[in-house]
């Protein structure tokens, strides 16, 4: 449900002119809800940025999110961590 919630708020932000990137945990939900820019991560629920206190991994996720802002639209764009 969390993934749908953030994606719906992200859609509102895009409508108001703010660029967004949404982490996504399940492909089936990402493809059903369709956030404008989604990054699928290979982590379990409760661990969206990877591991506690692993700043290197958390930065890798954030940089992949930032990289998605370079992709031309229109959306939805869905990438996986590692391929993003």
């Amino acid at each position, binding site marked *: 449900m969390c993934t*749908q919630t953030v994606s719906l708020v992200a859609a509102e932000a895009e409508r108001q002119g703010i660029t967004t990137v949404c982490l996504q945990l399940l492909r089936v939900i990402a493809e059903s809800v369709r956030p404008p820019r989604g990054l699928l991560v290979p982590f379990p629920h409760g661990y969206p940025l990877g591991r506690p206190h692993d700043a290197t991994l958390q930065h890798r996720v954030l*940089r992949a999110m930032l990289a998605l802002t370079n992709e031309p639209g229109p959306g939805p764009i869905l990438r996986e961590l590692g391929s993003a």
Partner: protein
Amino acid sequence: MAELSELPLKTRLFLAAYRWRRIDPVPWSPLRKPLRECRVAVVSSAGLTRPDQAPFDDDVRGGDPTYRILPADTELGELLESHRSESFDHSGLREDPNLALPLDRLKELAGAGTIGDVAPRHLSFMGSITATGRLVKETAPGAVNTLVADQVDLALFVPV
């Protein structure tokens, strides 16, 4: 990625019958300046609140659609987590709230010049919202107004 099979049976049965709210058309706002000049905010759905804020209300049918504003100088260790879901392991983000609200990491990215700066205010939702009408019509627009007022260029959304 996460697997449906890791979720409790009750949750899987619910998800199998649930009709997701499809975003259509998909809105699109490209960045209008280089990342190194962008102001960045985080939106978390982990149900995080500060000690001086009311916790999210577990009794709202369809899920509490309200949000909390978390100033950038919020002490991550003070945040309380009131996400009602029993479908995931909460211990990781209690140990390190950066898993859901990576403010320390964003400040490091700003310090390195990768992004322009960290927005003064960030947003917290409680993600277990099954009835999305009020979220879409009322609380999401209000929440986004906060980001617009702060001249945020890019918002990063983190579900749990």
